């Protein structure tokens, strides 16, 4: 089950080696359809026993016990991964950040330091995940979106210089489009891959819980000629089950 590749994996290019290395992934969700499950799926992929990748998780939304419980159902033991140093869980609910530019700069320097330490012991991919950006904005910058964008820019430099991946979750429907239209767009522009979780156009359903649209912008790459996922836009539906997620194209039988 772990080795099988589903539609989300294909859209992210996970059938290629190290596809997310050096990439920024933005997950956008809304009140009707939460995108947390995408984050959990990616956590499970990163911490899979078939890879030696590491994960730095900045938790602003929920405590460790919540993620532990969810990932256990998906077949991943977060406590073990913490002990193995594959998971660095930063509980931001406990930490107090000063709410000005120096606070978010300090947070970045800590992440940079952790990446450096991990990089000294492993050459595998390091993923930095943030759950979620809106709470980071409140906790670390006192609702200053400019500082959040500065923080994201610096995290982007980490992806290119230390070859990490950055995965962030943001709620697209909590920002008034009149006040800050550019803020959400800045985040979309920064991302190489945008995953949008939204409800079906027809509303709630028992057997289909929503749809995902994945835009894989990619970049000019040295892998010329490979069937890569640059400039691909894919849309498919999903159903959240007890121990996993099913993905399928509209109207197709689920696989």
């Amino acid at each position, binding site marked *: 089950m772990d080795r099988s590749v589903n539609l989300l994996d294909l859209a992210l290019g996970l059938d290629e080696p190290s596809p997310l290395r050096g990439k920024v992934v933005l997950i956008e969700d809304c009140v009707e359809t939460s995108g947390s499950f995408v984050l959990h799926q990616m956590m499970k992929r990163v911490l899979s026993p078939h890879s030696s990748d590491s994960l730095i998780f900045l938790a602003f939304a929920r405590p460790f016990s919540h993620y532990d419980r969810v990932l256990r159902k998906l077949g991943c033991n977060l406590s073990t991964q913490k002990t193995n140093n594959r998971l660095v869980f930063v509980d931001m609910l406990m930490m107090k950040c000063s709410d000005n530019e120096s606070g978010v700069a300090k947070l*970045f320097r800590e992440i*940079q330091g952790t990446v450096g330490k991990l990089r000294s012991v492993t050459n595998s991919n390091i993923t930095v995940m943030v759950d979620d950006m809106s709470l980071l904005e409140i906790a670390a910058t006192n609702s200053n979106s400019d500082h959040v964008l500065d923080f994201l820019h610096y995290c982007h430099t980490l992806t290119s210089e*230390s070859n990490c991946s950055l995965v962030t979750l943001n709620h697209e429907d909590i920002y008034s489009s009149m006040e800050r239209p550019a803020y*959400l767009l800045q985040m979309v*522009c920064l991302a190489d891959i945008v995953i949008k979780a939204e409800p079906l156009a027809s509303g709630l359903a028992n057997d289909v819980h929503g749809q995902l649209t994945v835009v894989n912008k990619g970049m*000019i790459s*040295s892998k010329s000629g490979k069937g*890569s996922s640059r400039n691909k*836009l894919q849309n498919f539906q999903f159903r959240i089950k007890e121990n996993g997620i099913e993905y399928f194209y509209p109207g197709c039988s689920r696989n």
Partner: protein
Amino acid sequence: MADSIFRKLRDGGEEGELAPALTIEETVASPFALDVSCYLLANLSSSILAGKSKSEGLVLVTFSRSPSFYLQFLKQKGIFVSSSSKWIRVLDCYTDPLGWIDQPSPGVITEGSSLIKLHKCVSDLKRLFSSIIEAGREMVGDGKTRFSVAIDSVNELLRHSSMPLVSGLLTDLRSHAQVSSLFWSLNTDLHQEKVTNALEYISTMKANLEPFCPSSDGKRNALENLFLVHQDFGKGRFHIRFKLRKGRVRVMSEEYHVDQTGINFSPISSVETIIAATKSLIPKVHFNLQLSEKERVEKEKVVLPFEHQDHGKSTEIYDGRRTLADGKTEATPLSSGELQADVVSSGKGGEIIYFRDSDDEHPDSDEDPDDDLDI
């Protein structure tokens, strides 16, 4: 046609004129300004190395990607840059624009320290200007030899400084005697229209990338545009607008297509692309909204209920009461929401004038309307 922009940048401006300047405009749905910049960078670098350009050096100011990204790209195109290269200098405003990092991280290129200079304070535009000129003079000296300037993106500059200051920086660069040509890119969805307009005023050329199915709704739907583009993502139209000296404007267009190796340009194909683009505007639902040819023909054959048969003559139904023509006296037509009013005429005694709810309501509307169908 993208070649023509490159040639204008390569040839520079004439003596006594401000340097030609290009704005490359992208949107969230067509985010390929970086690819266009790389295309121009590669071409300019080749021409400088071959001695075919008016400028003898290039200063690259990076905001949105690391210097190593561009050096790696040039290497792929067969242009090798080493620490001893005298024709290029990179001003790194990407790695640490706000001075958050105390020491350079191990990943930063340390080879060729004069090749790549770290610039730590992007909000100080005067200092940025001096750094650019200094980097240029390092290559070409203080005399009359000129150099080109490439700024990968002004989006970050506009976040940290006001529009007039950024405008001032670009104009100062254009006015400098040793700057031969200059280009920058901008994402128009991230800024107000006045910012885009201001930058267009100070450029002599404007190139904009447009997806095949643009929305006319403006910036608020920029995100929706991205998700609407669908299989055309990576393709679109590339429009170039040249401002000629006498005031005339020349506009050229071609198509672009982006792949792993970069951006490719081709002449505009036939009308079929427009039709294909329009088709993708249909919303994604799970039922068919369009008619096939056969369905269209069948639809045209259907005989409609007679009030819509469009003979040209009005339909009248005799129902034993007075006809519609008699019923309509000098009374002005009432709006459809009005209740019927029984009006007793003063002079005649006992006359009821009945105003129907809507003018076009048939006299027999209270009967089963399906009785009229001729099936």
